[in-house]
């Protein structure tokens, strides 16, 4: 069989797989839009192959890789139907991601992406995959990955705030805006991060902690990575800068819960906080930077009463103990961090639901108490005048209350139990939200009818 015939045969196979997997109603939103998108891609590839000369290896290769990624996508969508993830969290998170990842397209002035979700093995599977700008795609598909083992650990899922930052950054207009913000406020005025040489000087300085020096000497001994070729052969400067940006976005989107999840997850994989990755700067620098930003926003300044205060203090103490004491980790000045926080806050405030609303003690306290009493935390109160009342609560407040309850030392609750309670709370809160929306719509309809009469 010739290459072209083989690829056309694979198109036919993929068409059958598409029929088998996506013509059924998979997932909460159904699969029709996914089906139409994948079918359009397949039709284009097939059309291109039919018009390709058998000897044109470049064009055949282009179609081969387009088929490969379409095949992988369809199989991923099929797997997402297994539903092995926390769907109450996902439903809330989807609302945020669709609001912030809406972009202008040739079809519509603003079009949200299609989102699908699946679980993967390994803690490192937390990820949001956004299809590249240059791809055989009409509508962008966003895939959110959760670690299978952490299915119900909604408190840790706040780490996805960082990942959504990468998704936002992939849209050209946002990339332009955010690059400007970052360069003006954080990178250009900074003496340690303003360019490759400055980073290398800081990283390889004699003041670096021992763990960093040992790691760098290992890179030298085993892979011949040294200050001269560090950014040529090993790390990606732009990727490091993007990591800082996404940390800011995660913090502003999920508040203190994000900071707590980041500390737990990142230090669990690299306890020293000093190692560098090809795409990631040292964890310790990221955590220290975020603590300054959180303090600047004032998350730790909310005044709680004597009953809740010790729990909140225990939470913040657990965060502050993750702060690296060695000043080598403090790469950005307080002023640079404050300015960047303010500027990104301004950017996110243009997107509905993107910013974590500053919580009040009155909102958080009852949720914490419910969790401590092992009750799913929801917007509920009972008064003698009105009887039982339900009200809306942002799911991110539920998560913050979860972290506070998990940190309390007076009435210790296992971390997995707190997560399960919060997951149930978010699910019940969704029902409350729908009930309130239904009631409001009914009232509006009645008012309209009355006005007509």
């Amino acid at each position, binding site marked *: 069989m010739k290459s072209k015939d083989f690829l056309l045969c694979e198109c036919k196979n993929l068409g059958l797989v598409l029929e088998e997997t996506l013509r059924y109603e998979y997932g909460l939103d159904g699969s029709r839009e996914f089906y139409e998108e994948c079918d359009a891609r397949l039709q284009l590839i097939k059309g291109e192959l039919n018009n390709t000369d058998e000897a044109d290896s470049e064009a055949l290769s282009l179609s081969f890789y387009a088929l490969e990624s379409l095949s992988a996508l369809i199989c991923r969508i099929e797997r997402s139907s297994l539903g092995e993830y926390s769907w109450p969290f996902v439903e809330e998170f989807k609302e945020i991601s669709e609001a912030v990842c809406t972009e202008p397209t*040739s079809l519509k002035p603003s079009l949200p992406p299609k989102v699908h979700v699946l679980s993967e093995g390994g803690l490192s599977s937390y990820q949001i995959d956004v299809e590249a700008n240059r791809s055989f795609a009409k509508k962008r598909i966003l895939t959110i990955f959760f670690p299978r083992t952490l299915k119900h650990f909604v408190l840790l899922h706040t780490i996805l705030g960082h990942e959504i930052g990468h998704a936002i950054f992939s849209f050209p207009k946002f990339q332009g805006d955010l690059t400007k913000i970052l360069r003006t406020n954080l990178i250009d005025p900074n003496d340690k991060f303003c360019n490759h040489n400055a980073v290398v000087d800081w990283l390889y300085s004699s003041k670096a902690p021992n763990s960093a020096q040992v790691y760098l000497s290992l890179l030298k001994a085993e892979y011949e990575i040294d200050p001269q070729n560090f950014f040529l052969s090993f790390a990606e400067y732009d990727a490091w800068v993007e990591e800082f940006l996404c940390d800011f976005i995660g913090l502003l989107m999920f508040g203190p819960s994000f900071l707590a999840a980041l500390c737990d997850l990142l230090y669990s994989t690299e306890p020293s906080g000093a190692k560098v990755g090809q795409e*990631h700067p040292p964890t310790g620098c990221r955590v220290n930077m975020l603590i300054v930003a959180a303090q600047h926003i004032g998350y730790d300044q909310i005044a709680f009463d004597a009953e809740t205060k010790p729990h909140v203090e225990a939470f913040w103490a657990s965060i502050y103990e993750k702060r690296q004491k060695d000043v080598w980790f403090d790469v950005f000045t307080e002023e640079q961090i404050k300015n960047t926080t303010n500027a990104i806050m301004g950017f996110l405030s243009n997107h509905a639901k993107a910013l974590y609303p500053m919580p009040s003690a009155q909102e958080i306290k009852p949720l914490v108490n419910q969790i401590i009493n092992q009750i799913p935390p929801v917007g509920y109160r009972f008064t003698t005048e009105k009887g039982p009342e339900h009200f809306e609560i942002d799911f991110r407040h539920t998560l913050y209350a979860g972290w506070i309850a998990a940190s309390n030392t007076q009435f210790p609750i296992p971390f997995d139990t707190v997560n399960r309670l919060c997951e149930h709370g978010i699910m019940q809160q969704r029902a409350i939200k729908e009930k309130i929306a239904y009631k409001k719509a009914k009232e509006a309809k009645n008012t309209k009818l009355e006005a007509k009469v």
Partner: protein
Amino acid sequence: MSIMSAFRQDDSSAMYKRFAYLVSTYVDQPEVAATPAAQIPLENIFRLLEMYRYDAFKDENRSGVLASRSFSGRNMPRQSKAWHVDIQQALSQSLNNVFGNVPSNQAIDELEDVLRGLANDQPVSKQQQTHAKDFFNNFHQVLV
């Protein structure tokens, strides 16, 4: 171990060259442009123009927040230049060739209007059609 060790060369230029050609043919065939498959080249060229407008060409797939892929020292060789350098140059040249002194944002607005018109099966003026066709043909020729 995988059965093949494919080394995928960057094919962005080839892809955009092909899409530019297809889009130039859609200008004369609006009925084809409105089909779902044709919307893929239209949308890709639209995104490319947006990347150019905002000088926002970072378009790589990244690993997740905890990704700790070990560095083997045998990773893919780094490209000698970024994927977009030739494409960006070709866009600048074609904008200059077709639109002359018109500010690039204005030219891009006009091209995007044509792409929107084609994608949504809406009328596009004769002058805009001519400009768009000239531009996409020129871009197709200039891009190596």
